[in-house]
């Protein structure tokens, strides 16, 4: 966590530890009093310090909490830091008795895939295109867990886990940390002349149990969260220049594109193929979860940092030209909850 904070202090003018009002930590690790411990280790004495845990969505939830502290006037400057290790207890939700012995996430993703395939004719090859595209994008990301790409054929031939989930359709749990700084409109000017604004936020929990998803070919919480985020930002899907979407599994990206209205219902896989074939980096330029790795508590923060780079025009080889508006989509536990952020340059 500390190592991911260092570049913020190194690269932000006028910023010192005394400026930080809020430190929020995002992780699924069972670490008590973590935000205060991290604050002490980083030389910060914040007014507000605590952890936010919400499985895969923890980092994005953490950013929303920091936004709320600032917009309420309780704080001016918030540091959000997320981290996870491969042995995180956040990979499986043991509470969900309705999953029976099929508690591992590959099983819900497999049932999502079955449903999407049945309804829209989505194929195994369509799924492979997601992974091939995101692994290729991830090559341009210096923080990616992987140092090579995979072709559609290689994804197709990777180890079969279920009938419609192969090893390379899955994001990889890994160690990782990410930190981001949020500040009020007044406070930000001392730190930068070109801030990125959080223009819209939508969050929705429909349940905690996977089987409460009424339609397994769509993620209801994502539909509802994106509706709120678009409305708050006064934006529509056609305004989105670049998007980081939660692709814990290949099928999730196809469903997310449809649920965020970036593709028509049933056309998510066509969009993915088009992005792949034209080497367009509009969706998951940093590689998504599949092409970057998925350190749960850090993921939502890292997704948002990518939106920041894209809108600042500093994303290097993965830059989407003239990006002005970015969408960040994250979710937890078989899409029983989702968060959508809309960022603006």
């Amino acid at each position: 966590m500390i190592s991911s904070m260092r570049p913020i202090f190194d690269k932000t003018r006028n910023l010192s530890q005394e400026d930080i009002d809020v430190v929020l930590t995002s992780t699924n690790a069972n670490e008590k009093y973590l935000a205060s411990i991290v604050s002490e280790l980083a030389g910060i004495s914040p007014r507000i310090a605590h952890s936010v845990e919400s499985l895969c969505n923890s980092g994005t939830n953490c950013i929303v909490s920091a936004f709320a502290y600032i917009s309420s006037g309780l704080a001016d400057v918030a540091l959000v830091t997320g981290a996870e290790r491969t042995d995180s207890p956040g990979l499986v939700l043991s509470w969900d008795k309705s999953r029976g012995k099929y508690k591992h996430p590959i099983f819900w993703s497999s049932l999502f895939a079955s449903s999407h395939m049945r309804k829209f004719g989505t194929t195994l090859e369509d799924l492979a295109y997601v992974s091939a595209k995101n692994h290729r994008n991830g090559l341009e990301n210096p923080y990616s867990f992987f140092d090579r790409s995979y072709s559609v054929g290689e994804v197709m031939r990777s180890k079969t886990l279920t009938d419609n989930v192969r090893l390379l359709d899955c994001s990889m749990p890994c160690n990782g940390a990410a930190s981001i700084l949020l500040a009020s409109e007044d406070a930000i000017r001392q730190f930068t002349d070109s801030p990125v604004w959080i223009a819209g936020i939508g969050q929705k929990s429909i349940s905690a149990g996977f089987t409460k998803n009424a339609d397994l070919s769509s993620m209801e919480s994502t539909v509802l969260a994106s509706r709120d985020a678009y409305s708050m930002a006064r934006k529509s899907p056609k305004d989105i220049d670049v998007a980081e979407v939660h692709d814990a599994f290949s099928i999730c990206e196809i469903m997310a594109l449809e649920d965020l209205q970036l593709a028509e219902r049933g056309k998510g896989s066509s969009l993915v193929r088009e992005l792949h074939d034209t080497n367009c980096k509009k969706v998951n330029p940093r590689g998504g979860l599949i092409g970057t790795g998925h350190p749960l508590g850090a993921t939502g923060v890292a997704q948002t940092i990518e939106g920041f780079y894209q809108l600042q025009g500093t994303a290097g080889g993965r830059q989407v030209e003239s990006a002005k508006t970015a969408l960040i989509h994250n979710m937890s536990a078989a899409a029983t909850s989702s968060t959508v952020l809309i960022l603006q340059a």
Partner: protein
Amino acid sequence: MSRFEEELKRDKFVCSECSRCKKIVWPPSNYCNKCLNETTWREISRKGKLVEYSYNKGECFGIVEFESQIRIVGTVKGSERPDVGQIMNLEKCDYDGDEIFIFSSTVQRNGSQNS
């Protein structure tokens, strides 16, 4: 072991029902999620409808919906590919640290349906 897990181990499929408004609460809880009153246990019909399925290493698993509201994931027995919407029996439940649900088709080989 919780009461729910003990009942599963006895091959009984039970769920919480609100003692006041009679709402079924799934997954089981001590309190109703509508009126927040205490719940009691009641047995659930073992006949349900297949919502979706897939295969894991040749073994079929799927979601079956009971009493039009309780959806659970379990193993689908049988050599033939099932049909979504098909009526399934909860043939067996058990608990070994995980909840075990085994479904079987009610359709016989000759096409007739069990009552």
